[in-house]
């Protein structure tokens, strides 16, 4: 199971990746949309965990670009923004939509559910 984490807050995304690795999962991270696309072109990820609101490109738009490169990739959205509108849009576009801050156990559970492991 290979996970790609994408969030513009480097401290958040790098530490989340480290914690997933300590749990025996394979996790990689990116802080920009172009870095995420580049990593996806080079390696195969089973699932991407994307921040909804990032500079230049929303998580939803990034998802569409990632899907073109890796059609089988699954997606989970995370966000610190709590609008109902965002939830309604995000929930339709991804397997799960999680509010920050979250427990890592919740994320791991959702990843496993999304990949039906």
């Amino acid at each position, binding site marked *: 199971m290979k996970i790609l984490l994408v969030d*513009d*807050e480097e*401290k*958040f995304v790098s*530490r*989340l990746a*480290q*914690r997933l690795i*300590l749990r025996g999962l394979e996790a990689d991270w990116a802080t920009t949309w172009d870095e995420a696309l580049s990593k996806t072109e080079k390696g195969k990820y089973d699932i991407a965990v994307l921040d909804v*609101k*990032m*500079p*230049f490109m929303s998580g939803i738009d990034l998802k569409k670009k990632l899907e073109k490169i890796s059609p089988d990739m699954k997606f989970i959205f995370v966000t*610190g*923004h*709590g*609008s109902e509108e965002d939830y309604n849009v995000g929930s339709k576009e991804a397997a799960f939509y999680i*509010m*920050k*801050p*979250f427990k*890592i156990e919740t994320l791991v559970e959702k990843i496993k559910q999304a990949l039906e492991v």
Partner: protein
Amino acid sequence: MEKEIGKICAEGLAFFGITNRLISHELKNILAIISETLGLIDELIKSSQTGLDLKPGQLSSLSESVIEEIERANSIIRNMNTFAHSVDEFMGEVDISRILSLMIGICRLNSASKNTKLRLVDNGPCVIYTSPLFLQKLLYQVINFSLPFVSPQHEIKVSFDSDDHGARIIFSGISCNNIKELNEKEAWLAKMLSAKVFLDATAGELSIALPKRIGESPLQSLISEWQ
């Protein structure tokens, strides 16, 4: 007049809502960083008990990072409190330097989403008599209006000057090629504040001219109704 007063109240409330959302979004991001950092510290310590090498330098760096995020959150909450107090007096003396500093802080998420830096050139205190809440609202609108049109340097410089008649706030570093005119909302807000907003496409500048003391406007009428 009643319609204007209704619009004033609605705009004021909507602005409070927008600002609360921005602040809560930033705070949630900070809480997420703190949560992951403390979780990582905890897991590294537990892993050391099963043989993983524990690097004291790494733990120290992580805990310093938590302190930085707490300071960042504290700064945001200070802004939130300053903003909340902006309605203590509907009209009053406003320090342009402080209000610009506040609005740049509040708009940080929006400017970061456009990868743009807002840089304040602080010329020291500059006081006018106006509506703090509505000046904040106008500044918020103008900043967000400018962000999509930032020049390739990705920095908007915010400066101000004053004379006996009033103050002028200038937003520089805007690529005005695609801007035809300002929106209706900015024009309406300026009118409420007896202010004028100018777009200088050649200079790449947007400026707000504010009177030393707000003149006749529906905002003043609203106060008169209450008093």
